[in-house]
């Protein structure tokens, strides 16, 4: 445990020096405030508090931003050590590869938690100031924060896996962008195209829920939308959220980080010098 913590402290320090902490936090705060400002424009009131509306739009933001941020933080984690030549010495220390990986994960998760905490917190402040009833939405904000951290853990694990497989930071960066595009953008586009062509047939009722649960980004979206009271507003993929029980999206959200960190550990074990 001490070794994991020591690794995490060192990694956090490096990320702080490389301005990752301020970049991540700044980016989150900026985007969240923009969304909060947009959300505070008068909407045809449907009896939903302002914060819940903001959380719904923050969810859409997080689906794109959290995977991007975490992939950017993680693609260099192992490939960078290989390239700098710091890995051989580290591996002669009495610390396991799993401990090294968990230390890095802990540091990167802390940075992500800071970024989403500050970003979403700032948006919440804006919402509460313009609508005191928005306090009612705090529960969904809290849910969004911790589920963002879980989503981030999944993509951190994916980033470490790519980093171990590519062994060179430039190669890992390319793979990270590809994973982001596929998981966050293309996957949903493909699903949308299938929904449209299927027109409410077997695909939409049978396959779609599974397809949504299988992608961590979609599971995150479904989880937050179905848990929030603002579900009604969302159409398309959001509409399918209704048909998926909450426990299923929650399970997907919890299992994905475990799977991706296990994958990263396996990939790291295969790195030879």
């Amino acid at each position, binding site marked *: 445990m001490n070794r994991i913590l020591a690794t995490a402290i060192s990694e956090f320090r*490096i990320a702080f*020096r490389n301005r990752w902490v301020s970049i991540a936090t700044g980016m989150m705060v900026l985007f969240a405030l923009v969304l909060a400002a947009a959300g505070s424009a008068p909407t045809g009131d449907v009896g939903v508090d302002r914060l819940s509306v903001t959380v719904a739009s923050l969810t859409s933001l997080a689906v794109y931003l959290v995977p991007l941020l975490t992939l950017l933080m993680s693609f260099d984690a192992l490939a960078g050590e290989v390239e700098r030549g710091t890995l051989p*010495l580290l591996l002669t220390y009495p610390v396991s590869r799993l401990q090294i990986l968990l230390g890095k994960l802990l540091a990167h998760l802390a940075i992500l938690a800071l970024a989403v905490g500050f970003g979403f917190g700032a948006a919440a402040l804006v919402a509460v100031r313009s609508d005191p009833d928005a306090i009612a939405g705090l529960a969904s904000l809290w849910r969004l924060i911790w589920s963002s951290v879980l989503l981030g853990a999944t993509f951190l694990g994916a980033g470490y896996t790519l980093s171990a497989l590519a062994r060179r930071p430039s190669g890992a960066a390319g793979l990270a962008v590809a994973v982001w595009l596929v998981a966050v953008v293309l996957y949903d586009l493909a699903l949308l195209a299938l929904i449209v062509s299927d027109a409410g047939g077997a695909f939409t009722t049978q396959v779609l829920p599974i397809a949504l649960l299988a992608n961590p980004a979609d599971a995150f979206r479904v989880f937050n939308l179905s848990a929030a009271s603002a579900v009604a507003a969302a159409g398309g993929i959001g509409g399918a959220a209704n048909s998926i029980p909450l426990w299923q999206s929650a399970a997907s959200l919890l299992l994905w980080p475990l799977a991706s960190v296990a994958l990263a550990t396996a990939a790291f074990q295969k790195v030879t010098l």
Partner: protein
Amino acid sequence: MTPTLTISRLTKRFQSLEALKDVSLALEPGKRAALLGHNGAGKSTIMKIVLGLIPFESGEVRVCGARPGSSEARAKVAYLPENVAFHPALTGEEQLRHYLSLRGERPSRAMELLARVGLLHAARRRIGTYSKGMRQRVGLAQTLIGHPRLLVLDEPTSGLDPVSRRDFYELLDGLAADGTAILLSSHVLTEVEARTDRILILSGGELVAEGTLADLRTRAALPIVLLVRPAAGHAAALATAFPLGIQGKDGVLRIACDQSDKLPLLAGVAALGHQVADLDVIPPSLEDIYSHFSRRDGQ
């Protein structure tokens, strides 16, 4: 005494290249051994195997009685890689605090370690601003963490100036006196001469010679050179007395002879009495011995 490190019949190949062939050696506690060899001889490869960083084809390696790379072995072995590198964003102190924690030692000892390698003044600067010699010293400092039973140092003095080299070998003397076994590699021959108990010459992946410097000298049986300086006016007489010698412009006579002929020859020189002003005996240098044993194929 049971050896700290034993390697028996070790063979390692990289694809078609046989990097190590049937290498055996043993290193007892408190002994310092120097691995000498050309670039590509296999020095770093042996070290990486001892540390468990790379696998090997056949043979047996035991480190403090354990398998190389096992957590038991890693707890007792410290390593200084060739061209050691650290994250440039960390300071020397932060880097050492991290390594101390990984070995379960108190991180607050970082400054003390940096002081031992003469790096206290730069402890709070980022390693990215260090010179190669300073990075090398951070590398040395981290090998002093805990009480390693075996130190594996790959070209430890590269990048160090002569004074730092002397300090470095003094540091090693202290560790060896405490019972730490030390395996180091070098291609700077002169500096290992006085500072190690044993020399291992590696050539093309084979251990071609092993022993103390005196052993190797005897075994190589390389010629010894006598330099005889004549007294004023006796240069010609001297040249006639030793027809095998070669006389330089300054009159100094160079006589090469086998080890076994050394004493008779010295007696002959002494017999000349006042005709001789001075005499030097030059043993074969470590470089000569080294190239004798590590001749590459065809040379």
